[in-house]
């Protein structure tokens, strides 16, 4: 069995507070654990800090797949214990830019004045791998990366294993500039990554009204995400990257208004912090208990 745990699904800015308790305030971080124990960590937002608290084997090998280097996707890096353990092996994948390699780009955050510890001072066994349109294997997972439409160099990941296919595109604006979205699949950003996925974790930051004011910022309207998922023929959509201004009540209303009025051929479950999804069993969502609930 493969499990997918959401450790952070908030977009752009971490949002602590009681009114965000249901969906959570930590930024992007998802853990995928394969049937052999292989761990993939998708993005290093503030949710990585909570994931780090569950680490019981600090000397284990960790694989961190970054989609891009916006702050809300890397801010948890400095709070993940394996980075500071000389026995731990951490492999990072992520996109370079046209002028800077991945190490240089990451060091811009992992160095003063933004962070006191530099990347080169991390004691773990650290390996950096640059990805664009690539394919590689980690344990039982066959992973494909491809550049997608967002602001700056950004990839999405398609993760295939014996239990199914998971596609992770947390920041994505495939509708940008398209008059009648979507165009055919071949002209739709991210469509190859998402095709026939069992689980699609995808940006759904805005309502239609909000999107009209935020076009070009790299994120999707909830309705466009539904269209994207329908075109890709996914089985289960997990809307992700919730807007930091959306309280639990706002999100419930947005989901109700967009999903509730449509006949969809796939399941929709909005991402919620500590929710666990399982493959190949798709209809299970067992929240991980918060420390104060134990």
């Amino acid at each position, binding site marked *: 069995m493969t499990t997918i745990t959401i450790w952070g699904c908030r977009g752009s800015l971490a949002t602590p507070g009681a009114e965000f308790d249901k969906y959570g305030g930590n930024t992007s971080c998802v853990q995928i654990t394969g049937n052999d124990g292989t761990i993939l960590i998708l993005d290093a937002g503030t949710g990585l800090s909570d994931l780090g608290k569950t680490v019981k084997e600090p000397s284990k090998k960790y694989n961190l797949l970054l989609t891009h280097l916006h702050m809300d996707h890397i801010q948890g890096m400095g709070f993940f214990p394996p980075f500071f353990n000389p026995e731990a092996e951490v492999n990072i994948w992520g*996109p*370079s*830019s*046209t002028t800077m390699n991945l190490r240089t780009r990451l060091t811009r955050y992992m160095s003063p004045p933004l962070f006191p510890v530099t990347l080169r001072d991390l004691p773990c066994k650290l390996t950096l791998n*640059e990805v*664009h*349109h690539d394919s590689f294997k980690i344990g039982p997972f066959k992973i494909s990366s*491809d*550049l*997608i*439409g967002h602001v700056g*160099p950004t990839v999405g990941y398609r993760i295939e294993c014996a239990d199914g296919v998971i596609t992770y595109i947390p920041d994505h604006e495939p509708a*940008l*500039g*398209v*008059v009648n979205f979507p165009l*055919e*699949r*071949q*002209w*739709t*950003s991210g*469509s*190859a990554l998402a095709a026939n996925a069992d689980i699609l974790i995808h940006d759904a930051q805005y309502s239609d009204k909000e999107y009209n004011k935020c076009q070009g910022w790299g994120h999707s309207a909830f309705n466009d995400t539904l269209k994207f998922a329908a075109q890709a023929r996914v089985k289960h959509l997990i809307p992700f990257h919730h807007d930091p201004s959306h309280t639990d009540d706002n999100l419930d209303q947005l989901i109700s208004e967009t999903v509730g009025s449509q006949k969809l051929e796939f399941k929709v479950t909005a991402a919620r912090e500590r929710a666990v999804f399982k493959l190949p069993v798709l209809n299970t969502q067992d929240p991980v208990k918060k420390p104060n609930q134990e």
Partner: protein
Amino acid sequence: MAQKPIELILARQLSSHLAMPIFIVDPDGTLLYYNEPAELILGIRFEENGEMPADEWSTIFTPTNQDGSDLPPEELPLMIALTKRCPSHKSFQIRSFDGLVRNIQVTAFPITGQGNRFLGAMAIFWENNQ
């Protein structure tokens, strides 16, 4: 059909919003897209035409030099951008699908994407009498 690289998808989206006629081809020279202003010059809508291999589009419009002499396909700016991977500019004539002979100028440049992937070329063209 396989999904296009994001750089070409964004190039098409940009082209579809510009008032300048634009052609986009892949590394093999296959014509992937031209926008509405290009349709006016070529005399046929992209939706009617669809993708077209290089040996077809480079001859179908019967390109000729300004003096009427034949212009070999390999001397077209778009073909130079593809084969030499450098920008190219030229004035010449074409016979469009509606039968009219048009004097045009074309500027073409290669498209190099993230990771230095060569993804094709783009051409912008103008009618000389505009």
